[in-house]
């Protein structure tokens, strides 16, 4: 398979090309984030379903029928104001799928009847989310790190349920307008014919390239223990972290990523947290650390994600903090640096096993504005990092005294102990 990234005036296009392919997958991502407020988040809750609720001469049912009869799919998702369309079909049906996608984008109906239905179903889903302890723990942690104007700040489910009924068709159309006119990051995987078809579609239909200046409002660290009581759960879900005052393009970002991988590489068993808190101490089934929320021009944060049984929560948090403290005080070893470079190399090789992973990989790079040469250069730069670099940034950014803890689950019986423990580590 061959990779390429082409910038054009109105969109950029990454391609994963194979000599012959019976299938095709395309991704389009655009940043429609303008401002973060309660109404904007409510609009985003409703937008996806509304977009799939009828286009051109198609009713909602007719449109979905037309896509499904092709054995194809159009999935739409939205995260922090970034909207992604994922188109998937056989190569033979791709031109028909693109025609339907064009209708969906250019002639959405946005009817009052559909809005009523979508508001109703969205309110039911929000009610259901009240017991999603993992998401609640994460949202509460992020809200400690960002101001209300930041795209990473999430309004409460209760406030959102009050706002959803107030959303108007005009607000939804305005958001859709942003999706249409803002820059598109596009990626496609398939053979030359389907790639060429997709490129022609983009050239014919994407003739604007607005950029919206969104608001970004990071806050300095202010360590807090935050607990939500959800009695139906058996474990306390935890998001533990601290804000990091750098962006993805900062020179410290790569060594910091290495440090966090040594601490708790996401997935698998390689991180220190998995080998101690899980393997040696048997306190949790999974514990990982990663950098999240970063972009070229937006600051992110460290997050450790895990869960503990209520009666093990103090012990588990103690072990977690002990490992962060150990990393902060002693840094990483040369053996760990060497091992993690090998791990990195293996992970880059494994991408080649799957058409879908190759497409996702190149799409992530180009969405950050990378060319193929810059992508390769970035991958090479990962190997140049030294133990001294890593240990230097650990001292700057990973002070365990600055960690906030957000927990959601059956906390009511252990809040006193948890607060006493948290005070003791501050």
């Amino acid at each position: 398979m061959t990779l390429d990234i082409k910038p054009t005036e109105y969109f950029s296009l990454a391609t994963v090309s194979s000599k012959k392919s019976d299938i095709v997958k395309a991704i389009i991502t655009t940043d429609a984030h303008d401002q973060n407020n309660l109404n904007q988040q409510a609009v985003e809750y409703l937008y996806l379903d509304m977009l799939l609720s009828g286009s051109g001469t198609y009713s909602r049912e007719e449109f979905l029928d037309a896509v499904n009869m092709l054995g194809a799919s159009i999935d739409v998702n939205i995260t922090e104001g970034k909207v992604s369309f994922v188109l998937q079909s056989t190569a033979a049906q791709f031109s028909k799928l693109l025609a339907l996608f064009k209708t969906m984008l250019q002639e959405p109906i946005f009817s009052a009847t559909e809005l009523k239905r979508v508001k109703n179903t969205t309110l039911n889903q929000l009610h259901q989310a009240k017991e999603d302890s993992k998401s609640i723990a994460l949202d509460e942690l992020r809200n400690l790190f960002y101001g209300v104007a930041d795209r990473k700040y999430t309004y409460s489910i209760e406030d959102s349920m009050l706002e959803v009924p107030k959303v108007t068709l005009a607000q939804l159309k305005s958001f859709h307008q942003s999706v249409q006119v803002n820059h598109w990051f596009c990626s496609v995987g398939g053979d030359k014919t389907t790639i060429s078809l997709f490129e022609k579609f983009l050239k014919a239909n994407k003739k604007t390239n607005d950029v919206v200046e969104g608001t970004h409002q990071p806050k300095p660290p202010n360590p807090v223990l935050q607990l939500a009581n959800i009695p139906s759960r058996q474990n306390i879900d935890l998001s533990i972290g601290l804000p990091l005052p750098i962006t993805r393009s900062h020179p410290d970002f790569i060594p910091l990523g290495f440090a966090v991988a040594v601490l708790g590489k996401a997935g698998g068993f390689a991180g220190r947290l998995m080998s101690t808190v899980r393997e040696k101490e048997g306190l949790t089934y999974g514990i990982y650390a990663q950098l999240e929320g970063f972009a070229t021009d937006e600051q992110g944060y460290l997050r450790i994600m895990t869960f503990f049984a209520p009666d093990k929560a103090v012990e588990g948090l103690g072990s977690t903090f002990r490992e962060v403290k150990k990393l902060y005080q002693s840094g990483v070893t040369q053996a760990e640096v060497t091992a993690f470079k090998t791990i990195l190399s293996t992970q880059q090789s494994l991408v080649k096993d799957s058409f879908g992973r190759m497409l996702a990989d190149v799409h992530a790079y180009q969405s950050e504005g990378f060319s193929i040469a810059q992508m390769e250069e970035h991958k090479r730069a990962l190997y140049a990092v030294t133990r001294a670099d890593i240990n230097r940034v650990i001292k700057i950014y990973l002070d365990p005294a600055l960690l906030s803890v957000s927990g959601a689950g059956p906390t009511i019986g252990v809040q006193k102990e948890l607060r006493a423990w948290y005070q003791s580590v501050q």
Partner: protein
Amino acid sequence: MSKPANTKKASPKNIPGYTHVQTVAGIEEYVLKSNGLRVLYHHRPDTEVVTTNITYLVGAVDETLGKSGLAHMLEHMLFKPTVDDKKAKIANGSAMKFEREVGCILNANTWKDRTTYYFSYPAQYLDTALKIEAQRMTGVILNQKELGPEQKNVLSEFDMYNGDPYFALSVQLVSTAFLSHPYGHETIGYREDIEDYTPERLQQFYTDYYRPDNAVMMVIGDIDKKTALETVKQQFTTIKNPATPIPRHHIREPKQEGIRRVSIERSSTTNILSIGFKHAGLGTIEWLTTSVMLNVLTSGPESIFQKLLVDTGKVASIDSSQEPTRDTNLAVMHFTLASNQSHSEIEKIVLDTIAQQLVADITKLVKKVKANMLTDELFSRTSSLQIAAELTEYVASGSWENYAKTPDLLKAITPKMVVESMKMQFKPENLTIGTFIGK
């Protein structure tokens, strides 16, 4: 597909030490003559990646009362140090070392009829991966020191699942649906059984089921056949099978004579209605017909119950599950109720609607579902990990070659078959209904 060879010397299937069994859709099956280990080989050139997957034909179905979850517990123990690791002073065990020093993908999972271990890695590590699999087929150390922390991890895993109302209700639902058949307990087992595991109990289970003649090794990826099969032979050929036969429990489920019901009450804002029905095992057209039927009823915005219940605000969401098992099992539709809706009212709507379905009404839906499932099949065959994962289920069902037949079987399903399937499967004597009541 490889071209048929004319001469014995040139035959790609004539591999010393092996008997070639069959080749289907580019996947070749061999048996290692020395001990009966089955090997499935599939070449995927130009990826530089290999996935090896060993599936033992042992799962929850082989557990008896009071010993639920043993197969799963043992799966965890295979990541612990082996006898060879101790000799080589590899403190955390070779499998963990391989992941921690190389970064391969490694994992395992246990299901009703099988336990599966897999690695995905750059091709040069084939020998390392197979050596680990061979060592842990017989060399795992099962003592209290190793078992203790892992037992706590499994209890943590159990609590993670059990905190989910859907899982908690599913546990009760299957145990109500099956009075005797071991599919009546979830793979992870009951918390009380997990607490009672001993090293001796695990050792017996390990000795009984972890043996070459009860395993299938898959090698899928960018590696030539000669190297793949030679390496498997080199690592496994000296492993002997125990003299005792593999213990099997042939249990027939007693006849059901009406709807079975179960209920859970918890402090929660969630209310769920779950309707389960028994269906045929994987590898049959009946299993696929059930799959099409479940999609017609519950999958996507245009499915029957999404339109009838979600769009009208009666239900917040719908999920369904159908396990790929060898024997008859329970498929389930979960309806998460909107506020102020009653379980009984939703149950009546669901069962009345199913009773009224006609071929003409669902013809278009069946066509759409089949088209989507066929495209999904194409996409699922684009990585060695996914191919191995799907193939594993067919191996456990008893006929891996049905993997190749799936697209044709799917094409053969008609709306009439789907309606017939609904009529058969939603009879009272085939249903188990559960309610999760949030208080």
